[in-house]
């Protein structure tokens, strides 16, 4: 039930759009949908374990009760009611002393469906372990579709009515509080207690899972419908280090900064959808993604686009998804930190900021941007390099050099690169990137950076945006707390971790 809702991407986008009057911090919680999905999954596993253990004990008791011949309450309830066969009023599902619990398990609907769906659940969980998911995504994705079996099994799990309860009528005439001690006298027609009658309790799980299942079904149909809409590829740019940029157009597509889309290429794989962050700004008349070769699907895609003579492969697009990072525009001073592949959404953000700045957009409160780009080596991000270079040039033309301050940190340097850099120390542009700012080597010292920013803007609210690993998020948020002054009128750092 709850596990299906967080994975209805389009439903979440719809909620985000309709609840735009809500504060963005509330809407940001919608970005944690996968975390919620995992938490609910853990709960399902825990409760499955409790459920199974409880039924194991239950069946053991039934089995003992069936085999007991000592005239105890358990044996009488088991034996008498079955021999009666008055309608359906038995209690103990184990019908004869020779029947084993295993037999009942595998011949009853509840038992069989229970075993099947538990195995499906275990397979889903083991293939969803982070290690497997990150390394072999297809195993995870296809195995996870066992959830269909899980839900169908769950719905029919209770149909057999093995869990019995006393009928209303019987509760009226022989309540267990009054009659359970006098079970020898039940047959006595003069006694006020009669034998209790039992009936199967109806299946209830379908009531819980029906609505979310229907919502999820709509979601998949919607995804399919959106995927059938025509996507026109207007431009394909091959960047160095096996990066391809696709500029596309789709009818009715409107994006915000920092969102991502899912892309499918039927000629490579019918069923695989892969997410890519949008690297174009909303002000542009196309939307673009940059795809780097990082696995089978991406390599095949790049190869397909490299071939000049064959027609351009068809692309299907679903999206955009994700919370827009509009908060970036609301801070006077923005500190943007992109680590590794996390630099991609900042392409969109920087372009959009630049467009808004040029058109003197009132929504843009940003006056200064400090952009920190941390990566091992710039090879795969040469296209981002070019973007920074062009922004640099445009800023010079407009005379606004202080608007964008960027620093590039290369963490994967060796003595060769360092030596090269020392030799070319006096040159105006950096030898590695060609930008005016020199490349730094190693990781940034955040204390220095934060204190410099705090000194330069003593009275502003500074928004710190990170797209990168968790460890970096921790150190940045610590720095934010340390360098925010106690006086709320002076510099305040606000940390936002963007989940792209």
């Amino acid at each position: 039930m709850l596990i299906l809702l967080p994975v209805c991407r389009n439903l979440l986008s719809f909620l985000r759009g309709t609840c735009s009057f809500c504060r963005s911090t509330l809407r940001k919680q919608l970005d944690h949908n996968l975390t919620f999905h995992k938490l609910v999954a853990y709960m399902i596993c825990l409760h499955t374990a409790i459920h199974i253990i409880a039924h194991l004990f239950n069946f053991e008791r039934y089995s003992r009760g069936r085999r007991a011949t000592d005239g105890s309450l358990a044996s009488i309830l088991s034996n008498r009611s079955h021999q009666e066969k008055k309608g359906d009023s038995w209690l103990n599902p184990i019908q004869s002393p020779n029947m084993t619990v295993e037999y009942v398990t595998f011949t009853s609907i509840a038992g069989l469906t229970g075993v099947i769906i538990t195995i499906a659940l275990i397979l889903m969980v083991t293939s969803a372990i982070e290690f497997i998911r990150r390394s072999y995504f297809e195993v995870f994705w296809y195995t996870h579709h066992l959830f269909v079996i899980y839900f169908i099994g769950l719905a029919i799990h209770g149909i057999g009515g093995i869990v019995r309860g006393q009928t209303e009528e019987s509760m009226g005439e022989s309540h267990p509080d009054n009659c359970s001690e006098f079970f020898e006298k039940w047959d006595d027609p003069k006694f006020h207690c009669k034998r209790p009658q039992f009936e199967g309790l109806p299946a209830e799980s379908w009531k819980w899972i029906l609505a979310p299942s229907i919502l999820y079904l709509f979601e998949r149909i919607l995804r399919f419908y959106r995927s059938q809409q025509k996507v026109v590829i207007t431009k394909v740019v091959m960047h160095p280090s096996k990066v391809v940029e696709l500029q596309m157009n789709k009818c009715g597509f409107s994006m915000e900064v920092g969102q991502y889309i899912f892309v499918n290429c039927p000629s490579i794989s019918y069923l695989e959808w892969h997410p890519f962050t949008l690297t174009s700004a909303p002000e542009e008349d196309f939307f673009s993604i940059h795809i780097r070769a990082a696995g089978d699907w991406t390599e095949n895609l790049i190869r397909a686009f490299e071939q000049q003579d064959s027609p351009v492969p068809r692309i299907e697009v679903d999206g955009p998804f994700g919370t827009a990072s509009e908060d970036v525009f609301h801070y006077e001073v923005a500190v943007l930190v992109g680590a590794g592949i996390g630099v991609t959404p900042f392409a969109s953000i920087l372009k959009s900021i630049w467009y808004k700045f040029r058109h003197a957009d009132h929504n843009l409160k940003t006056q200064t941007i400090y952009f920190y780009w941390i990566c091992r080596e710039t090879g795969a991000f040469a296209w981002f390099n070019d973007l920074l270079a062009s922004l640099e040039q445009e800023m010079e033309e407009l005379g606004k050099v202080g608007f964008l301050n960027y620093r590039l940190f290369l963490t994967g340097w060796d003595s060769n690169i360092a030596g090269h850099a020392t030799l070319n120390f006096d040159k105006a542009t950096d030898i590695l990137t060609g930008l005016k700012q020199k490349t730094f080597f190693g990781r940034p010292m955040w204390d220095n950076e934060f204190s410099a920013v705090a000194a330069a803007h003593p009275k502003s609210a500074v928004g710190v945006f990170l797209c990168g690993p968790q460890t970096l998020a921790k150190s940045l948020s610590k720095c934010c707390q340390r360098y925010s002054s106690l006086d709320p009128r002076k510099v305040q750092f606000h940390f936002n971790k963007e989940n792209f």
Partner: protein
Amino acid sequence: MGQIEWAMWANEQALASGLILITGGIVATAGQFTQWYLGTYSIAAGVLICLLEYPRGKRSKGSTMERCGQKYMTRVVKLFGPLTRNYYIRAFLHLGPGAVDPLLTALLSPASTLAPARLSVPAGFLLATILGTACLVIASGIYLLAAIRGEQWTPIEPKPKERPQVGGTIKQPPSNPPPRPPAEARKKPGEEAAAAAGAPTGGPQENPVPVTDEVV
């Protein structure tokens, strides 16, 4: 589906089934179910399986994340050599517990005869542990697939730290002094006067203004 190493998933599945076997065994033993001694057996089998499967093998492509503290078990598992390296053997070992035959015999007649040899065949008799054995059958199937594709278990070993060779690049110190002009040319004219005046000659550098070392 690309380059998938089935052994990795099989390893996770087997580890999970080991844990489930242990849980089922504990439930059966603690609840004193009928034939609960099979529960104790399943705890033992589960523990063995967990110990065997805990150290993750090395991926052939890419880096592998170790499970925490796995290096102690890696050493033990490595000792068994081909027994643990080969996935066919692992598939057979896990299949023992979950073979279908004992399940059928349990259904038709509640016999308590323990089948010989394989690891957890007996656990298939007890309801509490059937789940563990079923998962183990699946794990053994995936291991079989991995073995057919030629995968092997290789231990993750920490790379020996390359100690920086102190002085390794320093060869023999130069035997010849650096070339210098002949002694007469080395002596500068000021030196003689300074020597005569008794002022200290500070080597080749003559400071026009007296320099003091300011230590703060």
